[in-house]
């Protein structure tokens, strides 16, 4: 044990102030606050900006469609685009993403079509895309559970000798669950190629972070698992991308897991059925809108002369095209086959389940024929 203490190098300790590369006013940061991370080049930042703008347009569109009753529910990620998009951008094609219900924009940014991505919230089925195809796990609702899946998948890849990395999103509230702890611990002990990205959007529904942890930062938790931890300005795409990519690449190179906290803010309600006026003030919301991740990048890129009117128009067009495609895909409901309810419960057929299927089939036929249902 004293061996253990003596021989193992202390992992990077999280900073006390969030790592920052472009500040809230859109100005490049230098010095200590960068924690040694270099600002990604402007072209890369422009790419992030483009995706963030498109993501936000999508998010706003889906919220609108939800208000119109076209979706059962929608948890918006508005204001969290720097976390969402940087994570997706930092992954290689073969890497895996483990999202939560909050992270629909990340799915779409990774190529999942709106219709596929919104199947869950439209209420058509629990999942609308093939995880293997996109290397994206189903969006997880039971909090923190998916973090363990990410660790398992990453470990399997490592055992096979593949260089696949898994990144999982987690909310601030979710860090309180036992599963989050077990995931951090398994990942560290197994040195799994995983990146844990805690989007600290300051609320778990109505519960503020102060009721969730007594630690100074969520990144500080990394120390107790012997893994590197980074506390990052989660509204700064430059910083988020820099830290996430470095962590992904260290994981890929065999350096094990990383815990990243992105400090951000959930600008909208928890979901459309939530009422934030019950638990937070307008002033706070206004402050955070002022720290918007897109606005600051826009300022920075415009000043840098790289975000020209032409590029901006192009981005807007792309965003509007996605919004329009989203509207279209939600305007008509797919025909659902109730009998499919029975088709994927097991791989192997079960006579008793086939009986139940036959029962529903008869019932449906009777309904058409004007019978009971």
């Amino acid at each position: 044990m004293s061996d253990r203490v003596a021989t193992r190098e202390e992992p990077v300790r999280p900073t006390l102030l969030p790592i920052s590369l472009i500040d809230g006013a859109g100005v490049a940061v230098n010095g200590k606050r960068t924690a040694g991370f270099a600002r990604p080049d402007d072209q890369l930042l422009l790419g992030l900006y483009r995706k963030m703008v498109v993501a936000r347009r999508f998010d706003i569109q889906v919220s609108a469609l939800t208000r119109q009753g076209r979706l059962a529910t929608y948890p918006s990620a508005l204001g969290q685009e720097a976390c969402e998009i940087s994570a997706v951008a930092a992954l290689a094609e073969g890497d895996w993403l483990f999202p939560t219900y909050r992270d629909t924009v990340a799915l779409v940014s990774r190529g999942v079509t709106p219709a596929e991505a919104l199947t869950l919230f439209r209420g058509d089925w629990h999942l609308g895309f093939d995880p293997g195809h996109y290397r994206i796990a189903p969006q997880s609702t039971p909090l923190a559970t998916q973090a363990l899946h990410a660790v398992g998948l990453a470990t399997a890849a490592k055992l096979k000798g593949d260089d696949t990395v898994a990144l999982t999103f987690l909310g601030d509230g979710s860090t309180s669950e036992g599963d989050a702890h077990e995931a951090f611990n398994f990942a560290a002990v197994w040195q799994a190629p995983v990146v844990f990205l805690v989007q600290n959007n300051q609320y778990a529904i109505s519960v503020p972070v102060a009721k969730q942890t007594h630690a100074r930062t969520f990144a500080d938790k990394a120390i107790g698992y012997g893994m590197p931890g980074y506390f990052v300005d989660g509204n700064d795409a430059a910083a988020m991308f820099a830290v996430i990519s470095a962590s992904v690449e260290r994981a890929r190179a065999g350096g094990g897991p990383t815990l990243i906290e992105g400090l951000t803010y959930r600008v909208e309600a928890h979901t459309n059925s939530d009422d934030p006026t019950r638990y937070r003030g307008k002033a706070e919301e206004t402050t955070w809108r002022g720290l918007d991740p897109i606005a600051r990048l826009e300022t920075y890129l415009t000043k840098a002369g790289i975000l020209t009117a032409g590029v901006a128009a192009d981005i807007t067009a792309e965003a509007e095209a996605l919004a329009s495609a989203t509207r279209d895909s939600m305007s008509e409901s797919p025909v659902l086959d109730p009998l499919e309810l029975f088709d994927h419960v097991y791989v192997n057929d079960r006579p008793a389940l086939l009986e139940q299927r036959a029962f529903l089939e008869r019932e449906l036929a009777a309904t058409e024929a004007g019978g009971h249902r």
Partner: protein
Amino acid sequence: MTILENRRSAMPAAQEAAQTATQVSLAGALTAALRDSMAEDSRVVVFGEDVGPLGGVFRVTDGLAKEFGDTRIWDSPLAEAGIVGTAIGMAMYGMRPVVEMQFDAFSYPAFEQITSHLAKMHNRSKGAVTLPIVIRIPYAGGIGGVEHHSDSSEAYWTHTPGLTVVTPSNPADAYSMLREAIASDDPVIFLEPKSRYWSKDAVELPVVTPPMTRALVLREGTDVTLVAYGPTVKTALQAADLGAAEGLSIEVIDLRSLSPFDDETVGASVRKTSRAAIIHEASQFGGYGAEVAARVTERQFFHLAAPILRITGFDIPFPSPKLEEYHLPTAERVLAALDTWEW
């Protein structure tokens, strides 16, 4: 108001006169029960996810944080095992915690604390420790919830010795049973049918309905005993209406308590009707209906003219919102099932 006919009021006459029957929702009745229990007994504390300022995602604890302050009701960290585990410790120190699991499936992280400790502590300590804890769990479907938000978990709890499991189907019972659950020295799993939260009755609060462990005959009938609980009581009453139109006299029983089971009330009904069916949302295989069918058959076999039927959800994971209507038992399905008997 057949339901109310079965109730006796424990209110002093003066107090009773001062009140007027108003429309109360099931959720509102629960809020009132929590408020009255908290006001009456300072050992009652309430905590869980979002139960404080927000008032819970279903607003069942609405207003209580303001009224009682954060030493009586508060938001806990987000961890269900933590919520139940700390409630156990508090009860060991003399408190009477009422905790909320936000949705049915989110009680599963607390499964070990519930089965290995909450249910067993009184027994393992030879009665030295009592755990007067209520775990409130909104359950079942019918509200278009996405996955993990519509489970019916009653079979897990009812198979666990040491737990009392009850579920109200209407506002008056919601009030009275929750107050009784909080006053009970045994741990109680209090299942709240979320699809019924907003259904209203004219009820004078406070109201005292029959003991929560008693089943109630809500509708008398002579041909069939239809056993229901929680969310399916309404469906059962609809089925009784539908049956009446077809000349079938259906007796509807609201179990109210799933564990213990009221053998007496159900048995008496079955001896009268000689036929029985049970309706629930949970999937059928190993569901609560199996116990009802098995024990009633054991006890009333020679009174039964036909096998007891189970009208339940299918043996599939709970479906997505747009498909749940095909899964959930309906009054029509009940009638169709009764049609399968040889009469």
